[in-house]
């Protein structure tokens, strides 16, 4: 962690990658601040894995450049990768050795690894290192992959779908490990299709679709832009009046009003700020009000599918 704090941990500038006629990355730019956790979400095939492979110089960009920890990734020497921990999205580990021997091998390449570090990590994840890798379940192989990425305490962690195959308890353990890493000043770049996980772990989120970043936002900002489901009922008002009051509000959609015995009830979906809505309902005689937690998952899914969504 010798870098000055002002230097980004990752700076990606206009990454373009084509495979034949397929455009995998179509001008992706983002910056990851040192000591932060940066998440990428997107549907399968959006380009998450391609970005990570390009950062590790496993594939070569058609154009654009990526700078990691102050070093350009293309043809970077081993010294850069010694400072990076990588977990591939499709993890394949050699099946014949034990977990311990395999970790030993990677430590030989990328070490040094502090004495006891591997055992400590294995214990946290209840992983038996003396079993042959081939006999491990998918989840246990994934744990081995996580230990492999974290054991040499790299300055930067690049983790592709790190919790895939882990049960909920182990997912929490992993998120704890990410928080610890951030606490140590390490930077974490991770991808996921589980939004709640990104929401818990990341400071910033990039949403990726068809090889483009749709938005980069802080998790809080994303939550602000997220949609909330509303349900309210009021007395002394007709369904038509209620509809007329709610409908003009910015971000108010899918307003559905029905008459009730005492007045009317409405359900709607609200995107964006909540205070205009609160001002409107303050004048009503409410008998019931439910504002659900913002649903990040649904708002992101809408972004994926919005036809006109662009950067």
């Amino acid at each position, binding site marked *: 962690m010798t870098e000055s704090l002002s230097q980004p941990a990752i700076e990606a500038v206009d990454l373009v990658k084509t*495979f034949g006629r397929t455009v995998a990355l179509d001008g992706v730019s983002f910056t990851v601040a040192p000591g932060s956790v940066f998440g990428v979400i997107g549907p399968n095939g959006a380009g998450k894995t391609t970005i990570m*492979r390009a950062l590790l110089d496993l594939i070569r960009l058609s154009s654009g450049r990526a700078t990691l920890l102050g070093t350009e990734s293309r043809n970077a020497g081993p010294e850069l990768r010694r400072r990076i921990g*990588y977990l591939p999205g499709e993890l394949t580990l*050699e099946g014949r050795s034990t977990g311990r021997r395999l970790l030993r091998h*990677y*430590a030989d*390449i990328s070490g040094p690894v*502090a*004495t006891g570090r591997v055992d400590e990590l294995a214990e946290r994840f209840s992983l038996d290192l003396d079993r042959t890798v081939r006999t491990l379940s998918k989840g246990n192989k994934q744990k081995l992959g996580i230990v492999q990425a974290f054991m040499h305490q790299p300055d930067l962690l690049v983790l592709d779908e790190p919790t895939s195959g882990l049960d909920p308890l182990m997912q929490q353990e992993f998120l704890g490990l990410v928080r610890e890493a951030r606490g140590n000043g390490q930077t974490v770049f991770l991808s996921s299709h589980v939004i709640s996980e990104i929401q818990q772990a990341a400071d910033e989120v990039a949403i990726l679709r068809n090889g483009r970043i749709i938005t980069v936002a802080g998790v809080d900002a994303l939550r602000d832009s997220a949609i909330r489901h509303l349900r309210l009922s009021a007395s002394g008002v007709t369904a038509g009046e209620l509809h007329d009051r709610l409908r003009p509000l910015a971000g108010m959609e899918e307003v559905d009003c029905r008459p009730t015995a005492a007045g009317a009830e409405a359900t709607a979906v609200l995107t964006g700020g909540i205070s205009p809505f609160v001002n409107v309902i303050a004048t009503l005689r409410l008998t019931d009000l439910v504002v659900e937690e913002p649903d990040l998952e649904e708002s992101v899914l809408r972004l994926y599918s919005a036809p006109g969504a662009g950067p």
Partner: protein
Amino acid sequence: MTTTVRRTPLPVFTKALTDSRRSLVGWSLGFAAALSLYLPIFPSMSGNSQMQDLIDSLPTELTRTINYENIGTGAGYTQSTFFGLVGFLLISIAAISWGAAALGGDEESGQLELTLAHAVTRVEVAAQRFAALAVKILLPALVAFVIVMIWNGPAELDIDLANLLSTCLLFGGLALVCGSAALLGGALTGRRAWGIGTGAFVAVVGYVFNAVGNQGTDLEWLHALSPYYAAYGHDPLINGADAWTVVLFYLAALVLGALAALALRQRDVGV
């Protein structure tokens, strides 16, 4: 300061060797067994005129193809039965499968991606795996040398040990060329099957061109294209081998290994 675990030098080379220790033992035992089946029966064959009559009665095309023309001497017999045929087949299979697995197979299975994400360059990975391949191939060649040497007296082979040494070096060198071609095929494509195809092409075409070139002067030019002929065409076990020929095989293998490293360096890995 935190204490750290001591690290092994040349980890990729070391792992490539230790991972195949079982297969190395297996192949070496196979070589020893094949030699120990063939060599002890030489005295009963050389003193047996019926055997020579049998060979003489075979079509000359056949005896030329399988190089059985000099089978009457210990050196000719060992060359024809082992170095030129069964041994060549065995060591080629071993070398080609090791060479194809070293980069192509490793990439195809998805394991190379993770290795390359660690603190090692692609050229280092290719170079260390090439070196491991060379050691793995030379070990069975050494086994062949020792076993032939052991049987030399008891089986009345009467082979000159210097000629045996250069033959074993050519034997290993030829296999290393095939294995390096397999390494290159795998490095170019990231597929094990292409590696095997490339290596087998060199081995088989070399053998076939030698055999066809043996048939007559019209076809002798094929010898120039045959690594097999370059190794065995002048009967090194009988006549000894030119040091340059031996060196040339290892140089050719080095060139193929370097090309494999360059090919791997340029490519997108794991796509």
